[in-house]
């Protein structure tokens, strides 16, 4: 089979779907429900397609590079998108621009795919923008909500700002190395101060997308402002993708100055965990709460990344996989509740267990997984991140991380307490959950419970990343 087709299959499938939707839209259009189910099927196909014809190779000179691990990462992302399409069905059915929504989301997904397998700063930059601009547009999808457009504005402006800085860094890098392809840059790096400067500029772009402290400030506002579908997409899919490419860039391109970025990661990881936790402590709105919690999670991811070897890669990919399930489950429950009752405050979740035990259990599971409590998968994910990070035997570093687990546990338990323990005279009334949502939630729950215990998942990722 043609190399081009096999290597770029994920991108091609996604592009195909985008155009299909485009034609449907331009043509006579479809009813939302049927369109949605069609899209869901297509996304499922896309996800499944990810498992076939995995191979390693370059395209377009060396601009595009892929290998089984990268394909696996792409699969994680498409899985996430599929779950989102199921979870947010209730909201999606209501929206007037379903096709456009998915076109945007998929082009963002395409951007992420390209970003992950980019082997060249230009591609990386373009893919990054492709992964950002549509999301900014999506963030505005609650057209008549002011908060939504405010969030979108904040996102587009700050991302433009950060990409400006990124570009300046790239330009300096280009000036000193004379190339924009990863491999050659790595060869050219000599750790001169300009390159450090350039690296910092470049670094901030990742920091911005991953919302690492102090480049995280946009996160919470945008998450709160935008529709939950978008929020979950932002917090799970785009974070994951950036984490992946971040690893590649650090390990591949900036290997020569690894001692610089190791220290940087350590500092920022600590800052991120602490600040994220401290802010999450006080949040009322569940989306905002999850935003800050996800910032704290990123701190842990950085711990994993800081170990400059395949263990780190494995741990991060594994964690992101788990994170997809956990966070999506949380957001899914949140979206169901806010769709049916418009309630997004943690205090309004009081007494939820009485009326909606299923949702409560799923949310609790998700939160425990985020907090890293066994037997949920999050426990393993976090632990392996720390294990990877501990390889350099920086005990105080792990200690800080571990202590942060305590703070995070505190506020995750706040939600659990609200649902299970607190009394409430008018709790969220019994919610009739549509089958697709239920399915998605069940998938997430199963994922949360099983992925940890099914060790072959981890070992599979390990074998993939070990080959690098």
């Amino acid at each position, binding site marked *: 089979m043609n190399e081009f087709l096999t290597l770029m299959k994920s991108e091609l499938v996604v592009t195909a779907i985008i155009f299909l939707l485009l034609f449907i839209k331009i043509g006579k259009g479809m009813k939302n429900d049927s369109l949605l189910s069609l899209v869901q099927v297509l996304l499922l196909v896309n996800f499944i397609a990810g498992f076939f014809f995995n191979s390693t190779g370059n395209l377009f000179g060396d601009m595009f590079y892929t290998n089984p691990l990268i394909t696996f990462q792409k699969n994680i992302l498409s899985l996430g998108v599929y779950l989102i399409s199921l979870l947010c069905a209730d909201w999606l059915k209501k929206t007037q621009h379903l096709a456009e929504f998915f076109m945007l989301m998929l082009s963002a997904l395409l951007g992420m795919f390209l970003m992950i397998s980019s082997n060249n700063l230009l591609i990386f930059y373009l893919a990054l923008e492709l992964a950002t601009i549509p999301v900014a547009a999506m963030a505005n999808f609650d057209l008549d909500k002011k908060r939504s457009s405010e969030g979108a504005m904040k996102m587009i402006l700050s991302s433009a700002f950060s990409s*400006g800085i990124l570009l300046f860094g790239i330009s300096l890098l280009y000036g000193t190395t004379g190339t924009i392809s990863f491999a050659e840059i790595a060869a050219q790096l000599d750790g001169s101060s300009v390159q450090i400067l350039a690296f910092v500029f470049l670094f901030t772009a990742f920091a911005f997308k991953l919302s690492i402290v102090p480049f995280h400030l946009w996160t919470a506002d945008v998450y709160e402002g935008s529709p939950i579908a978008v929020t979950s997409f932002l917090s799970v899919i785009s974070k994951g993708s950036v984490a992946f490419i971040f690893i590649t860039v650090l390990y591949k391109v900036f290997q020569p100055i690894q001692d610089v970025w190791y220290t940087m990661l350590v500092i920022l990881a600590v800052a991120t965990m602490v600040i994220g936790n401290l802010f999450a402590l006080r949040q009322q709105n569940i989306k905002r709460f999850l935003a800050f919690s996800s910032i704290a999670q990123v701190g842990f991811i950085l711990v994993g990344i800081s170990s400059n070897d395949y263990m780190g890669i494995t741990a991060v990919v594994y964690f992101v996989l788990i994170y997809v399930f956990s966070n999506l489950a949380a957001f899914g429950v949140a979206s169901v509740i806010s769709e049916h009752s418009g309630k997004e405050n943690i205090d309004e979740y009081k007494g939820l267990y009485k009326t909606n035990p299923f949702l409560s259990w799923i949310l609790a599971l998700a939160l425990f997984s985020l907090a890293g409590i066994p037997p949920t998968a999050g426990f393993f994910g976090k632990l392996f991140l720390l294990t990877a990070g501990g390889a350099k035997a920086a005990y105080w570093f792990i200690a800080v991380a571990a202590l942060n687990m305590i703070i995070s546990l505190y506020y995750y338990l706040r939600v659990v307490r609200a649902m299970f323990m607190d009394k409430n005279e008018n709790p969220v009334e019994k919610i009739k959950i549509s089958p697709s949502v239920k399915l998605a939630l069940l998938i997430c729950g199963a994922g949360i419970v099983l992925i940890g215990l099914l060790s072959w998942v981890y070992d599979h990722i390990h074998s993939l990343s070990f080959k690098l």
Partner: protein
Amino acid sequence: MIEPGLYHILFISAALFFIGIYGFLTRRNLITMLMSIELILNSVNLNFIAFNKYVWPDKMDGLFFTLFIIAIAAAEAAVAIAIIINLYRSHQSIDVENAEDLKY
């Protein structure tokens, strides 16, 4: 060193870059902030071209980068303006200070 060369251009671009940033940080009007963004991007373009011309003339990476940046800038500006206009519709102002419902 009166003779203009790479470093002069780098000075110009860097200056323009930080002028843009300054604008972005201080302008209260969203559209003017957008303009500042444009300045930033242009300074970057200038960098690329300069490097391409003075340092790595044999390949055209910088040049192409500039081209694509210009394209991106257009797209970004379009979306940004769309969002701004929408924001303007929803509460008759494009003053960034007024868009701070989401905080803490």
